[in-house]
């Protein structure tokens, strides 16, 4: 490999990190946007290169500053990391193109540069979390992404965004603190922060209550960050009141990376201790996941604000991912991992489309969008496609996830769970079809008379993601192949 490519793992994080201060220094809105776009696409480029490299030659390590692990910080890239990197940077790239018009409409122009600086910082934090092999370094990136996210949410159009942001700040800080307590306890017992090292040393002390307490803190802390039911209280408000572009970015990436952290820490680091099977963690996870799927899908049906309905749907969809993880089987894990991608694509597409509606109509309430299908046909068609994917109709990515989840449940001998998975997807029919009926099956009211289709850049970005949710549903061999490899690698470290 040539010299510059050798440093790809570092570049993926350092480039966005260094760009943020530049954006603040430049201050001009268009320059800030251009830089944010450039950085997002550059990280997509790096991520794809990394993914190809991992698929070709297997997992590899990168030592920050040449300091050998476990003393220095190790960046370790395996299939799962590279897959998550690709998801995050792809969503960020699409959202960055989209954000210009949306940000212009929703945020004062003197604060645009702050939005883009935070956007880039958030991206940096998310990518860093996905790539690092050091548990404390992960905490640093977690805080970078969290702090920038609080700011992004707080930039929303009305003052409710501030309370949403504050709530997220408090709960997010509790989560991060729990994480750091857990890591601290593990460090106390092992004297190392390197994940691979931790995974090696922890099994010998698995019987101590310190290690068990560490695991408990970590599960709850990460559970808060990924909005696992019933720790999701911060999410609906944050997604509803954040600026549209920020909501689309967060919906596709933030919770996904937290799920990745869960996989990496709970399965990767604590997998070999045998605690996952000794303690009823998977059983609890399964019950909570099923509860999320039913309760939050049902709540989504009754929300008057569509962004809020989609936010609750996100919590339900996180439930699907956690359910896949809770099976602790290759198929189940692969289903969960592939749903990281699948859900990111379709949910971001939906939030982008709603952002376009918010731009033109000024509201995303269901009674404000009656008949909008005639006025914004392209945007609402994207909602239809991504919505069908959310239901899990064949030829969309949602179907792929559902298929493997059910297969994992059936091969695991848990047919009632399989029935519940399919039954819960029927709730998605209700909350998706409500939108479709409102948008397409009512004549547009007089207040919509002057509504035009959204700007081209917004429609295009929305359709890139909506199209991806069909493309990867038509041929899921690529995504499923990567997910299966990632699941295999993860399961190697899990004690039976």
């Amino acid at each position, binding site marked *: 490999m040539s010299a510059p490519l050798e440093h790809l793992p570092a570049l993926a994080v350092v480039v966005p990190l260094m760009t943020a201060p530049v954006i603040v220094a430049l201050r001009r809105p268009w320059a800030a946007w251009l830089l944010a776009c450039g950085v997002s696409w550059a990280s997509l480029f790096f991520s794809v290169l990394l993914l190809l490299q991992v698929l070709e030659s297997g997992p590899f390590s990168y030592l920050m500053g040449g300091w050998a692990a476990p003393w220095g910080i190790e960046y370790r890239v395996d299939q799962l990391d590279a897959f998550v990197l690709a998801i995050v940077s792809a969503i960020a790239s699409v959202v960055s193109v989209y954000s210009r018009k949306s940000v212009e409409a929703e945020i004062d122009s003197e604060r645009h540069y702050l939005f883009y600086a935070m956007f880039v910082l958030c991206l940096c934090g998310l990518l860093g979390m996905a790539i690092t092999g050091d548990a404390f370094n992960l905490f640093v990136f977690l805080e970078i992404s969290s702090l920038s996210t609080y700011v992004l949410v707080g930039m929303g159009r009305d003052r409710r965004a501030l309370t949403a942001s504050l709530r997220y700040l408090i709960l997010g800080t509790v989560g991060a603190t729990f994480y750091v307590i857990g890591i601290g306890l593990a460090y106390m017992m092992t004297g190392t922060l390197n994940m691979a090292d931790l995974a090696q040393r922890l099994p010998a002390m698995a019987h101590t209550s310190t290690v068990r307490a560490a695991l408990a803190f970590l599960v709850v802390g990460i559970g808060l960050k990924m909005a696992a039911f019933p720790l999701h209280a911060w999410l609906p408000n944050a997604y509803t009141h954040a600026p549209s572009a920020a909501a689309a970015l967060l919906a596709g990436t933030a919770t996904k990376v937290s799920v990745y952290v869960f996989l990496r820490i709970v399965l990767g680091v604590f997998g070999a201790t045998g605690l996952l099977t000794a303690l009823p963690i998977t059983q609890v996870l399964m019950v909570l996941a099923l509860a999320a799927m039913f309760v939050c899908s049902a709540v989504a049906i009754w929300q008057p604000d569509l962004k809020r309905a989609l936010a609750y749907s996100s919590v339900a969809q996180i439930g699907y991912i956690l359910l896949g993880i809770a099976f602790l089987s290759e198929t189940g894990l692969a289903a969960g991992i592939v749903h990281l991608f699948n859900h990111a694509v379709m949910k971001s597409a939906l939030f982008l489309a709603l952002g376009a509606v918010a731009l033109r109509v000024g509201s995303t309430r269901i009674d404000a969008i009656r008949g909008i299908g005639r006025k914004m046909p392209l945007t609402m068609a994207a909602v239809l496609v991504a919505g*069908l994917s959310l*239901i*899990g*109709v*064949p*030829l969309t990515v949602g179907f*792929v996830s*559902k*298929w*493997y989840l*059910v*297969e994992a449940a*059936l*091969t695991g001998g848990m*047919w009632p769970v*399989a*029935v519940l998975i*399919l*039954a819960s*997807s*029927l709730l998605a*029919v209700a909350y998706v*079809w409500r939108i479709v*009926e409102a948008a397409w*099956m009512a004549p547009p009211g007089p207040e919509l008379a002057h509504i035009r289709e959204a700007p081209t850049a917004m429609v295009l970005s929305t359709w890139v993601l909506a199209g991806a949710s069909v493309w990867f*549903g*038509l*041929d*899921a*061999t690529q995504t*499923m*192949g990567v997910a*299966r490899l990632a699941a295999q690698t993860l399961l190697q470290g899990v004690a039976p």
Partner: protein
Amino acid sequence: MTPSTLMLLALLLPLLAVGPILLAGRYPNLREAVSLGAGALLIAVVLGLRSQLADGVVPVLNFGEMLPGLTLRLELEPLGMLFALVAAGLWPVTILYAIGYMRGHHEKNQTRFYAFFAIAIAAAMGIALSGNMLTLFVFYEVLTICTFPLVTHAGTPEAKRAGRTYLGILIGTSIGLQLLAIIATWALAGTLDFAPGGILAGKVSGPLVGVLFALYVFGIGKAALMPFHRWLPAAMVAPTPVSALLHAVAVVKAGVFTVLKVTLYIFGIDLLAENAAADWLVWAAGFTIVAASVVALSKDNLKARLAYSTISQLSYVLLGAAILAPLSVMGAAIHIAAHALGKITLFFAAGAVMVASHKTEISQMAGIGRKMPWTMGAFAIGALSMIGLPPTAGFVSKWYVLSGALQSQQMVAVAVVTLSTLLNAAYFLPIIHSAFFGRAGDDHDHHHDHGEAPLPSVLALCVTAAGTIVLFVLPDQVLALAGALLGRNP
């Protein structure tokens, strides 16, 4: 042209027509010409496939993997051929009918109507030609979704409610039950390809076979087995051409066709017989046949009565499959064609009456046969076919189903068929009698003295009525396909 190209063409032709239909939206004559032309071409393509199949060629077309290890593929076999012939053959006839109906009825959004109609036909072709259960399921769901705008065409609150029932039951059963059965099949058998003799033989046994079979049969909501039949009467709010082609032919036949496919190619008759896994279906289908007929008796709205008659007739196919005797399975396959021709005629006639006289209730139709002799004549032929009397197609299929039932000593089935014949006669013959011999009541709105419906509509319903008789006189083609299904010569 190679056989697989022909098959691709059968799938694509209706889809390719969608673009021109939308473009020609402002010129109704051109727009309908596109539909008719595509329909004629489609018939030619399907007939081409028929001759290939007769020569012993089995066209196969792989689209590539959708999920690892699971491909989307088309493969032609006799049952699919039969369904494709029925659906493709009746499409242009229905377009012809729709020209008269939609314009006579001053329906709005006709371009959208013809466009979705073409997509629905493409989906039906996909179902007919599917080479494995995954492909079939994909097209099955596509058919559900693309017929939704047709069902809710009127856009009224009533149509919206009906649309919810339609989508709720069809999507609910297919995702909740059928998909579960498909994934379980995949987990058990490791394949979803249709294979003569079934793919589950030797993989499962005991009560699980019955459970899985029930998941399939109830999961295929389009077959309208009670209690999942409510969507069909609800779908009657659609314009009559939709009720005629989709809810008497393409959609419902896709349902019973899928059940037959599953019976023959997923389970195999032997596996079902060994485990007594289809016995319950004899009762369930029998119940549906009788119960739906009784409900039909009580309906005064003609389309509603026809809808319940359809529910009843669909279960004949299920009954034929459940008896598991080769003859009754043949009867079930023939009934797909026979009922299609008869019921589309009846719906055409009902719609023609609606356009010409604005009458929807049977009690208003006394004496209408004298004003609309062609329409009601065709209606009579269709009704005879429903009852199963010669010289109509319904007689042929009923004969085979009954022979199979007698041969395998299924006296329940024999009793059900006999009873339902009486019930069918009870709810069809009075309509015909009063139409021709009844005295027109004083329905004070003689705002216009109507004659026949528009010519294209009358033409279409005469064609299908003639088809019902032709199928009785010359059943060779259908018999050959149904026989080939079981690997025997007629």
